[in-house]
């Protein structure tokens, strides 16, 4: 397992929620691409965090642990039959309140990316995690993260060019 230079921040659950709920939502949204599903994900993630707090070995930060739970939840959700793919486009506008003139393309392009590529782009560009930290969250090797992130960027660039 790769070593991560993150110190465990011991915060109470309400403080963690206040601090990281937004990040958990955005990360969940990057995978699920569905606003309401991402909202549900936040609830589930924090409940699961509270339930699994005793098994949390404190080898990573609370935020990383929350994102690991979120990732597991989101991919399980996508695999489940209950997940409604048709609602993705409907809820998209609700998710992104952006300058339509300049940013509409990027949100469309992001939605076209695969869950994994979108997730990697989110973890790198928005959360600013290092390759090692992304590797810890996604359970991919650092080399794999490096390559997949490059491909995600190429893909995003391609979608942007097409539009």
């Amino acid at each position, binding site marked *: 397992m790769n070593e991560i230079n993150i110190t465990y921040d011991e915060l109470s659950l309400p403080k963690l929620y206040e601090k990281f709920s937004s990040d958990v939502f955005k990360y969940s949204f990057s995978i699920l691409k569905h606003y309401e599903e991402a909202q549900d994900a*936040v609830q589930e993630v924090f409940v699961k965090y509270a339930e699994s707090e005793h098994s949390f070995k404190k080898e990573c930060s609370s935020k990383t642990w929350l994102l690991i739970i979120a990732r597991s939840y989101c991919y399980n959700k996508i695999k489940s039959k209950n997940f409604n793919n048709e609602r993705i486009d409907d809820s998209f506008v609700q998710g992104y309140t952006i300058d339509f003139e300049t940013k509409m393309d990027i949100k469309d392009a992001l939605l076209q990316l695969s869950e994994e590529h979108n997730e990697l782009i989110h973890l790198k560009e928005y959360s600013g995690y290092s390759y090692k930290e992304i590797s810890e969250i996604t359970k991919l090797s650092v080399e794999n993260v490096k390559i997949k992130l490059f491909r995600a960027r190429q893909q995003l660039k391609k979608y942007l060019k097409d539009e």
Partner: protein
Amino acid sequence: MKHYEFEISQFLDNELPADEQKKLFMHLSKCSECAEVLSDFMKMKKDVKSVYNDMNVELKDSSALMNLLEPPTKKRNSYKTMFYFTAVASLMLGFFLILLEGNQSSLKNQYLQLQKESLKLQNEYAVVLNEKRQLTEVNKTYFDKMNLLKTTSYRLPTTHFPKTSVINGSYKAITSINKKRIPSGGMPVAFAKITKEDFLIPQIIGN
């Protein structure tokens, strides 16, 4: 000509080693395509961050989560406190009762032991009392006998007891008589047998 798109991606993530960065810069100065890729990737990076930063986040308040996040109410706290207080009080009471019972049983044991010892002593006292009674009786008999002896026995008057000079005189007189009676060459037998008691006994009997 080799392009450096992969290295550009790493460079933007601050993960490209210093020696490779030099190579990249050298290449970028010559390759316009890679310079454009760098520009595109940089813009994408900025736009993606902006998109996520500007995202409107509205979170749901599920009851399950709220139960976890809300601090416990005072009412619940007081119930909890009361419960713990009662539990602790019950435990303490139980402990004291057990302790008291233990003390009582030990005291009871001590009392029984003392009672046994008391009975033993009472028996011993009875035996001693019996012995004393017997001794008293013996003593009484003895004293009775003594009294009887006192009343019946002869009290030797000091005036009747012969004086030493008289005894000595008698003695001399007897010895002189005996000497006369002793045959020549033989020992005076009477001389050897005569003691003071020989003088006393006839007088007591006589009285």
